[in-house]
């Protein structure tokens, strides 16, 4: 899920929700999130992993823009996503645990700051999904709402740093099927909605293989094709690109 969310941000660019219950009658959010972590594979499964490499594709709905993606994630906190889009080029988004950056064929290099940096560093935490308490200071179950016709717990998560997120966890399966947040960054405050589906087992983890992201009037579909664990990713894969190092020297 974390990997998907990072790719969603990189890729940037109707469900009727009707509260059914008052908050005080709902299960506690931390209980739900712990069940979600278990449903996705659990801490024990993550403890056996030190890296994950995902390949897949993306498509911007309606305008036919397509691309391929590869995500490298290495414990404890290194992450790099490369997206190559026909007619646009390559966009890289990375974090070495301290610095979060982007290198885009369109906009060039930039170092992330503020909320963007906070989100990127959180996403880069290899076990952040199961160790959610490390990153969120408050989680509250606020309602049960339907997503795609299924009852979901609506959980408002307030991170230690960065903007609030709202997650929807399917009541029956405990799987996270939707997330909304407002991305804050130099491009403005942009509402983002992501829906996750096609959950399949990869090793000992259960992962969404299809994600639809809606932001700024665009809809982007992301599909995971392959997932590999404990791959020996070259250490220099996460070295800061020259352009980023030059920006750091300014």
């Amino acid at each position, binding site marked *: 899920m974390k990997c998907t969310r990072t790719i969603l941000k990189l890729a940037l660019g109707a469900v009727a929700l009707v509260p059914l219950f008052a908050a005080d009658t709902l299960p506690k959010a931390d209980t739900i999130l712990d069940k979600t972590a278990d449903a996705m594979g659990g801490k024990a499964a993550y403890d056996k992993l030190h890296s994950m490499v995902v390949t897949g594709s993306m498509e*911007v709905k309606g*305008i036919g*823009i397509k691309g391929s993606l590869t995500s490298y994630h290495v414990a404890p906190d290194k992450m790099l996503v490369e997206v190559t889009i026909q*007619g646009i*080029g390559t966009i890289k988004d990375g974090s070495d645990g301290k610095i979060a950056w982007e290198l885009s064929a369109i*906009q060039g290099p930039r170092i992330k700051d503020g909320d963007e940096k906070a989100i990127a560093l959180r996403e880069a935490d290899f076990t952040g999904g199961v160790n959610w308490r490390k990153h969120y200071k408050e989680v509250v179950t606020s309602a049960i709402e339907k997503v795609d016709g299924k009852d979901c717990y609506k959980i408002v998560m307030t991170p230690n740093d960065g903007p609030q997120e709202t997650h929807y966890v399917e009541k029956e399966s405990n799987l996270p099927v939707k997330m909304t947040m407002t991305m804050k960054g130099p491009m403005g405050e942009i509402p983002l909605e992501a829906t996750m589906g096609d959950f399949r087992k990869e090793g000992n983890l259960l992962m969404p293989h299809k994600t639809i992201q809606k932001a700024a009037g665009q809809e982007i579909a992301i599909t995971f094709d392959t997932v590999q664990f404990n791959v020996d990713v070259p250490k220099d894969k996460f070295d800061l690109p020259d352009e980023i190092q030059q920006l750091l020297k300014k």
Partner: protein
Amino acid sequence: MCIRAVLLSFALTWSCAAAGKTTLTPEQRKLNIESFEYVWTTVRDKHWDPKLGGLDWKAVHDELRSAIETADTPEQAREVMSSMLRRLHQTHFGIFPADVYGEMKGSQGKDDESSDNADGNPGIDLRIVDGRAVVTAIAPDSPAATAGIKPGWEIVRIGGKELAKSIDRIDRKLAVTTLHELMLTRAIGERLDGDAGTQVKIEFRDGAGRRLERTIERVKPRGAVAHLGNLPPLHFWVEQRKLTHDVGYLRFNMFFEPEALMSAVSALMKDCAACRGIVIDLRGNPGGIGGLAMGLAGWFTDRSGTQLGTMYMRTAHVNFAIFARPNPFRGELAVLVDGCSASTSEIFAGGLQDLKRARIFGTHTAGAALPSVIERLPNGDGFQYAIANYISQGGKPLEGIGVTPDEEVKLTRRALLDGNDPVLDRALAWIGTAKN
């Protein structure tokens, strides 16, 4: 990704129906009502401001609905819909008669059997200067260059058809819009286009006033084929060079192919790091990928986080933020524009003008900063509408207004015939005298 192509889709297959003043059949009345409802619903659902500035859109509908039901002619029906759109008090919302689009679609003036996806041209760039189609540039090594065609020559006929009447007709119809020069130039320019390998007969008037007829082969356009999503294949080219020992020059035909474009800019920066100034020539550039305005601007400022402007959509406001490159160019920057500079070109030029980072030379731009969509209505008319608003950093909307140059310099046929480029000359003069 922020893709902002100018979607002035002249490729629609406009019919020439419904032009007369005859009484309508029940079926035609029905189509007019459907068109009315489509226009009203589209504005309600797609306009960037859901409140439409406080306008009671439902009341507008209810007020005009009976008028569309009783409209007796196509003109009356069109006027009812136009009246509805005028309540918005915004440009780029309008109803266009089908026959005007028939005139504007270049193939109407052709005398050959070229396909709708014609992929060839003789290598002639033209503008409408003082009501005449005038050659402004010849593509290097093109059939037009081989045929000896010169800038400044007037194009009198294409395919045996006189241009003067068409120019006059389109000119009068579009005189009120900033898109005037862009649409007029495209309408006439498209008559030169056809399938690669075919020929086009063109009658010119040279500098001495002599009429010269040339039959010129059409070839694939200059540049490499670029693909982006569902857009048809486009030919992209970029050139960068030094005009003098201390002035660099960058020109490209569209904001596409980011890696090729940025590679050319990077090469220019290396060659021209100590230059006094750089000229970016956006004349005739229709725009393309909106994000490239930010990406290109990043080479010319060291203030990361500044903005070219903001695009307002119904669901979000997107800042066009600039991320400064590690070693940006700090010398003078001149940007050349004309009425065929649109979309991303305007966002780039207008934003840097507002930030006082660039001085703009040429003529007023097209005022088409947004993806303005033209759709065919059930009754055959054309319906144009914008789906977002763009405000440049100085607080001015670009849509329907465009960028006003700091120094207005018009092309003249005489200057072209003499081998001069008065717009570029003025920019070079400014760079030569500007305080660095």
